[in-house]
């Protein structure tokens, strides 16, 4: 059976207010993804719209596919919280491998600026169990803060070590013209910001944003004809976990470990083979957990990777060279596609200032909820 490649990638500017409809927002990502390809919208024989729908528009797939001239071909909405567009890539891969479709557009989007931060916190809180968790005032930062507290109690890391993740990611965010926050932050900036949910402070947390992302995924023979440098999808892993009362561990994400294991097995590689990675740094602690869950560091040693600068470009395993969710902002459904775009551009050696020279194998770790879902994707030049 033919392999599957990503032939085009794009994203809109991520911002606190896009001043556009969701379809107009998606056009920005679609345009960038299609530019330079020997193909047109009419060659796309299915589209997968990935959103958790924080805008008033319900079932966004109809409106978005019409605006992008993707009708009358089938279109679907994939909802998987913050890892929707990684899940969308997995579905696109399956569509192509099965022979049902040849070229599939995976379009991630979220428009969150129509709601206040408290309203978004309440809506996100209802992504937890609305009978048993939301009634206590559960929020995203609170969920990861409980992981941070348990992790700090077990391994003795400090709030300063958490802050170093943001220092690194803000350094790369300053180089990313599509990031919401493009300012390098100091340890003092981060440690001095107000506490949101202890021990996490404002700058340990990513922000809600408006944004879109687009991946054009094609059957291998077509990919070779229409794209200058196809990037091959070689590993796909995905897993889920329980609500908070059922968690076996509060110092690692079980679903991330399982998704990573599947992806490494499928790609026939190990963590030591990865040249560049994007991990889901919705909160600083999440990046440290990711290092360990992906096998870049042993349990309890994740913070040391940042301390030693090993996850900067030039280090052992550069991570979040686009600034991560912490700098870009987090338009829920668009985030996975933006992470994949970064790795595709890294593997094509198009990443400019933060390019990892000679990168051949890249990895994307995209988590939904507080470790409720995780997708790990391995790409190869």
């Amino acid at each position: 059976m033919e392999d599957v490649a990503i032939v085009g990638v794009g994203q809109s500017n991520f911002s606190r207010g896009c001043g556009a409809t969701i379809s107009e927002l998606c056009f920005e990502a679609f345009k960038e993804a299609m530019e330079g390809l020997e193909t047109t919208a009419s060659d796309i024989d299915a589209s997968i719209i990935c959103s958790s729908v924080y805008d008033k528009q319900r079932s966004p797939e109809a409106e978005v596919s019409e605006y992008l001239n993707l009708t009358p071909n089938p279109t679907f909405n994939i909802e998987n919280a913050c890892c929707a567009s990684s899940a969308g890539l997995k579905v696109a891969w399956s569509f192509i491998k099965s022979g049902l479709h040849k070229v599939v557009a995976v379009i991630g989007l979220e428009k969150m600026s129509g709601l206040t931060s408290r309203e978004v916190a309440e809506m996100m809180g209802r992504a937890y169990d609305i009978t048993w968790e939301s009634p206590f005032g559960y929020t995203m930062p609170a969920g990861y803060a409980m992981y941070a507290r348990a992790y700090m109690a077990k391994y003795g890391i400090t709030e300063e070590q958490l802050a170093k993740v943001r220092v690194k990611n803000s350094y790369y965010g300053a180089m990313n013209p599509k990031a919401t926050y493009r300012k390098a932050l100091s340890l003092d900036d981060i440690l001095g910001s107000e506490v949101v949910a202890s021990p996490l402070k404002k700058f340990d947390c990513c922000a809600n944003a408006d944004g879109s992302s687009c991946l054009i995924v094609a059957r291998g023979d077509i990919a070779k004809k229409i794209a200058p440098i196809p990037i091959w999808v070689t590993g796909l892993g995905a897993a889920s976990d329980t609500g908070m009362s059922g968690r076996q561990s509060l110092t690692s994400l079980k679903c991330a470990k399982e998704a990573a294991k599947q992806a490494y097995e499928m790609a026939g590689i190990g963590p030591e083979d990865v040249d560049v990675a994007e991990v889901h740094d919705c909160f600083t602690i999440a990046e440290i957990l990711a290092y360990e869950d992906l096998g870049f560091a042993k349990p309890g040693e994740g913070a040391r990777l940042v301390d030693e600068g090993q996850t900067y470009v030039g280090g052992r395993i550069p991570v979040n060279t686009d600034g991560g969710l912490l700098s870009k902002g987090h338009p829920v459904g668009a985030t996975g596609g933006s992470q994949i775009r970064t790795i595709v551009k890294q593997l094509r050696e198009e990443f400019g200032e933060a390019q990892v020279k000679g990168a051949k194998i890249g990895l994307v770790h995209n988590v939904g909820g507080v470790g409720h879902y995780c997708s790990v994707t391995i790409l190869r030049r």
Partner: protein
Amino acid sequence: MGFEKFGVVSHTTKSKVADFVTYLEEGKVMATRCRKCGTSYFPPKTDCPKCLLSDMEWFEIKGNGKLITYTIVNYGPAGFEGKTPYTLAIGEFEEGIKIFGLLSRDIEEGDIKVGMGLKVIPVKLPDNRICYEFQKV
């Protein structure tokens, strides 16, 4: 009567485990156990997906527990304006069950330690609402 008065803000009213709320009013925090396979459930379930049976018994969580983790929340969602700070926590209990919920406001911030001993106790909230919370042993 059911979940409309459970917790600080509720989003559900009806559930087949509404007896949980009745037990809270009687001063008990309860979980369910499948009579066939013996699996315990918290949050309580009325159905066992392993056995495909709905033959459950209730049992009380009255043993000691310990604090696994916590966070003091300063920025709450809509509906929690004026209610911050509050402390969310996970406790693990002798019955082999983990519970997510609120830590009592009676515990001073400086006294909260991962590993500390806990009990889970029903508590009345303002506006005739009811909940459970973790208290220090």
